[in-house]
């Protein structure tokens, strides 16, 4: 039996306002541990909204997000923050690094916020992550001294810092050139192959095709599901779509 890392049931997200708007409209989805899931769809289709719900950044209007077997709809904002800190790693289109801090300090941030390791261990882990992403030379530089691709890799290292079960990435390659895109995508692929779950929102159909599974969202609903060329057999088994 394949482990389910992330499961959503009847997920609905509505925005109340002058004009009420349904961003996510009844999505059921299971993501296996170690799966690389790509979410595609046109602008405004609700794919980012779905991603924020999956990463507990946002709370659903209806439905349930189950992360590693833990239902989250009843959690308080603080408890959700704690789950994000330990179980989810975020990468955004805009790198969102703290500008006054060096690459190393940015990677240290989630570990220091969690506070379960000694300063020495944290430093070692941060350096190890930066080195594995080819950034050992850039550790002492600030974000504005790094290229776009380098920043995005620092953001990835930061997302990985607390060994989260799930990496959630929103258009991580949206601002990158082809070479950097290839590099970042490769890293995400490696992360998934190492057993962490990766959920990526992307516009790039070519990249999405290299994921284990691709779901296409239109108007907040899953419009189409397709499987990658080299998708892992357990993914198909987990999602019951053989």
């Amino acid at each position, binding site marked *: 039996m394949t482990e389910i890392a992330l499961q959503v049931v009847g997920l609905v997200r509505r925005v109340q306002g002058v004009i009420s708007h349904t961003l996510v409209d009844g999505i059921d989805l299971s993501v296996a541990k170690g799966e690389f899931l790509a979410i595609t769809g046109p602008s405004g289709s609700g794919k*980012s909204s779905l991603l*924020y719900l999956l*990463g507990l*950044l*946002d709370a659903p209007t209806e439905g349930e997000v189950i992360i590693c077997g833990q239902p989250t709809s009843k959690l308080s*904002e*603080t408890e959700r*923050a*704690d*789950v*994000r*800190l*330990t179980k*989810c790693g*975020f990468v*955004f*289109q*805009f790198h*969102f*690094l*703290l*500008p*006054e*801090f060096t690459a190393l300090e940015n990677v240290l*941030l*989630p570990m*220091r*916020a*969690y*506070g379960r390791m000694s300063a020495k261990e944290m430093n070692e882990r941060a350096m190890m992550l930066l080195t594995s992403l080819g950034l050992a030379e850039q550790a002492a530089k600030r974000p504005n001294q790094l290229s776009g691709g380098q920043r995005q890799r620092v953001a990835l290292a*930061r997302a990985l810092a607390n060994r989260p079960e799930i990496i959630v990435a*929103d*258009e991580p390659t*949206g601002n990158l050139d082809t070479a950097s895109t290839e590099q970042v995508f490769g890293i995400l692929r490696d992360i998934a192959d190492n057993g962490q779950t990766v959920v990526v929102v992307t516009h790039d159909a070519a990249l999405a095709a290299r994921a284990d599974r691709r779901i296409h969202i239109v108007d907040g609903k899953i419009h189409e599901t397709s499987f990658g060329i080299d998708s892992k057999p357990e993914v198909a088994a987990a999602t019951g779509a053989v």
Partner: protein
Amino acid sequence: MTTNLLLSIAWTHVSTRVRQTLVGMFGVAMGVGFTIMMAGLMQGSQIDFLRQLVDTMPHVTVEDERRSVPSQPAEEEYAAVGMSNVPNVTRRPGIKYPDTVMASLRSWLPGDVAPSVKTTALVEHGGARVGVTLTGIDPRLEVRVSKLASQMREGQLTDLSKAANGIIIGQALAEKLAVKNGNTVLLGAGQGAQTSATVVGIFRSGLKRVDEGQIYSLISLAQTLMGQSGIINQLRLRLSDPVVAQKVATQVEAQIGYKSVSWQEANADLLSTFATRDFIVLTVMGAMLLTSSFATYNIISTITHEKRHDIAIMKSLGMREYAVRRIFIIESAIMGSVGIVFGWILGYLLCYGWSQITIFNPLTGATVPLQIYYSPMHYIASGAISILCCAVAAFFPARKATRVHPVEIIRGAS
């Protein structure tokens, strides 16, 4: 560990925004500095004034009257009895056995006591006539209970014994009557007795009502004018610590039964004015500190606005809202505490600067430097209030900024 993180983020924000931080610190420093200066000035002038008052007056005055009508034995015995027209002055004026009373007081008093005779008199000179209070004193004992000896402008206390019917008058009175040292004036008593007296000294206490309405003579002259030989109707006490005067007065009154008035009681109206003044000053100082904290409010508002992205990141990474909020409160505290230290320096310098200024004091008629009171309490209180104001000033913008949902900002950015 987490506190460490918050501190380092806060420190980074503050240290990379030098101009803003300096403005914030400057605001706090101004508030604290001016508050200290005001406190020093106000308390300095007040203490100076009180010192003059206390120096001029006896600390406790015992007079030959009772505070209330003595209760009559019949009244104590029967509830129905009501006695009226009972005088509360002793039948024969004067304090009974003054020497014995003084000896007994000296045995426990933290200070000294001197006898005197107080009466009213008219001073006539060159056709002008002024009503005054005449106090007959013993020059040898007087030096122990008043500063009169040091207030002499011309002549000495001992000169009283050198001339027949010598008197010492205040400078203001001397000017009013155009009397010079050595002149002879006519002294009239309420009872009709009249005698000529020689001015042997002129004093100046600094209090106008004393300088204009008080003269001194030997005890015997006052007794003669009253027509009561041997009478002593006033004991004047001077204490080593004027603050305990009230307590001593109560004790003396309990022991000897005569009305004993402390300088605090005699000047209750002045002291209550001081209480009002204190209240006004405290209000103004509080307002200054509060106003200075608005600079902090503004700066924290600006920083939190500029740092919206960082707040969103930290929250999305899983930092709790109150932890993120605390970063900005720490920033305010950093600005506040450094500002307070600068404020202390500024306050001290301002106090020092003011103390170099001399002003004409109409009370004493002398040009004296402004009196500044230096007290660590001023520094502690202004610092404590200021840091509290800073924390509160930071709390509201920080709370508003950190409440923002990260999704709103992340959506806006991408």
